[in-house]
């Protein structure tokens, strides 16, 4: 066989093969489809600032971006989506779009914009994994990219301030996690018993959120209450990455049917209430002199 394909990605920590969402997606898909990748981590090299990670090198070509890399692997006949029907393929695209729109902004905020987390976890980690003198630049650059992405896509006037957007993106992210949990139900993977590219994308997004020791993580707390998603993540880690992932004490192997559903209902109601609350806040923000004010002022 020709030389193996080489993947550049960020290194691992916290029981994960990589701490970077996009790299995790590619690593997981490679395991699912049986592709052998030579994984090279870019930690402590100059590539932390020059390369756009993850990056796949094969023969002479270079592919970046998770979607492109997955397409490339499929063309090389490493296809984990072989058994999906056309409709399931369409569902995959739709759910991936849902993850990107609703969950990714909140993930970026949790890791890169939230002051507590950034100062105590993310920046030290990335600083310690970058060579001198890049360790001064790399985390800051990532943080400003994350902030600008959130503001440009989610903040519409008059919500130009990041604090006002926070409420909105977290409630959307919680709703997205609830939806994913509903869809997963009691199954091992999203489409039956074998993992597919959708499983890789979901794993890539939620694994750092579950495993990272975040000082202030309201989204993490919400996710920990969704047992089936935690279970999903741990199953993949155990079966495909041979990590001695300590099973979390509240994710027991035997799926407890009723408490899961009851939990989910409660969480769905909480998220709905929160979104009503946020709309009320939006209304208050937007009531300007030319509009007639609401008759009941908030106390």
């Amino acid at each position, binding site marked *: 066989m020709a030389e193996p394909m080489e993947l550049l990605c960020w290194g691992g920590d916290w029981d994960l093969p990589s701490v970077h969402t996009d790299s995790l997606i590619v690593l997981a898909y490679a395991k699912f489809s049986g592709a052998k990748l030579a994984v090279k981590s870019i930690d402590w090299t100059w590539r932390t600032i020059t390369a756009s990670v993850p990056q796949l090198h094969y023969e002479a070509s270079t592919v970046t971006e998770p979607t492109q890399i997955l397409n490339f692997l499929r063309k090389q006949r490493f296809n984990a989506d072989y058994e999906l029907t056309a409709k399931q393929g*369409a*569902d995959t695209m*739709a759910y991936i779009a849902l993850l990107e*729109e609703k969950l990714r902004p909140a993930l970026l905020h949790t890791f890169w914009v939230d002051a507590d987390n950034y100062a105590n976890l993310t920046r030290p980690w990335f600083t310690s994994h970058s060579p001198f003198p890049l360790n001064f630049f790399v985390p800051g650059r990532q943080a400003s990219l994350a902030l600008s992405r959130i503001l440009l896509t989610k903040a519409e006037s008059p919500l130009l301030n990041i604090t006002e957007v926070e409420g909105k993106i977290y409630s959307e992210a919680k709703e997205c996690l609830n939806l994913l949990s*509903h869809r997963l139900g009691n199954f091992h993977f999203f489409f039956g018993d074998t993992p597919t590219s959708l499983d890789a994308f979901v794993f890539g997004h939620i694994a750092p959120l579950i495993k990272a020791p975040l000082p202030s993580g309201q989204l993490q707390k919400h996710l920990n209450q969704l047992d089936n998603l935690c279970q999903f993540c741990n199953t993949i880690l155990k079966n495909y990455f041979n990590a001695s992932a300590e099973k979390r004490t509240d994710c027991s192997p035997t799926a407890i049917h009723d408490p899961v559903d009851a939990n989910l209902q409660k969480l769905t109601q909480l998220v709905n209430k929160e979104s009503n609350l946020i709309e009320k806040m939006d209304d208050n923000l937007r009531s300007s002199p030319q509009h007639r004010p609401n008759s009941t002022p908030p106390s």
Partner: protein
Amino acid sequence: MSLAAEAFVSQIAAAEPWPEKATLYQPLKEDQILLSDSASSLAVQTFLRMCGLPVQVSCCANAEYMSPSGKVPFIHVGNQVVSELGPIVQFIKAKGHSLSDGLDDVQRAEMKAYMELVNNMLLTAELYIQWCDDYTATEISRPRYSSPYSWPLNHILAYQKQWEVRRKMNAIGWSGKNLEQVYEDVSQCCQALSQRLGTQPYFFNKQPTELDALVFGHLFTILTTQLTNDELAEKVKSYTNLLSFCHRIEQTYFKEDKGSRSV
């Protein structure tokens, strides 16, 4: 204020019935409105028709600036102003009209996922083609967008809007794409929608939902808008079930005033 009290107050505000003089605002239809705004506006109008709620469409040159979130279309109902399809659907749900009540949780998850797919791919592709493709931007988007204004305001506003859209494309990583890749993305999105629709009349079998309104809004606008080339419309036309879907919705909900418009 406690959560329960907030919910109670918003219920009171939403308990007013739908007034007769609800208005929907959008930019000028003949000269100013662009593809993406026209698609969003049509989606909202379709949704309101599906709910059976009458609304008057009013075209104003400064609709974008009147909107509370800066995006069109927006509706003015009673003493409240709501913009964009997502918040409008929730607002109408609070008033007691909903198209997606009959769906169970998994189907609702699917519906939301497909709506995000349309927003993520189709809407972004429309914005890209309008503002990041130099030829289209120069020939169509900038002249149309700034047509109600006089010199030099028209130049300033057009370039400002273009710069804003390009920044957004940069942030989400679309600025590295070329036009061919964008057309390819549109084609994949249409393929996913076509596969999901299959042979059913609507996306969730017999009843139309907000997803049908959104898809119709975008596809119908793409098919009937004249751009610098027809490639976008051709991509959509290659999926026959999507074409017949658009026909069906047009016949059912718009037949009284658009009977002669052909696709």
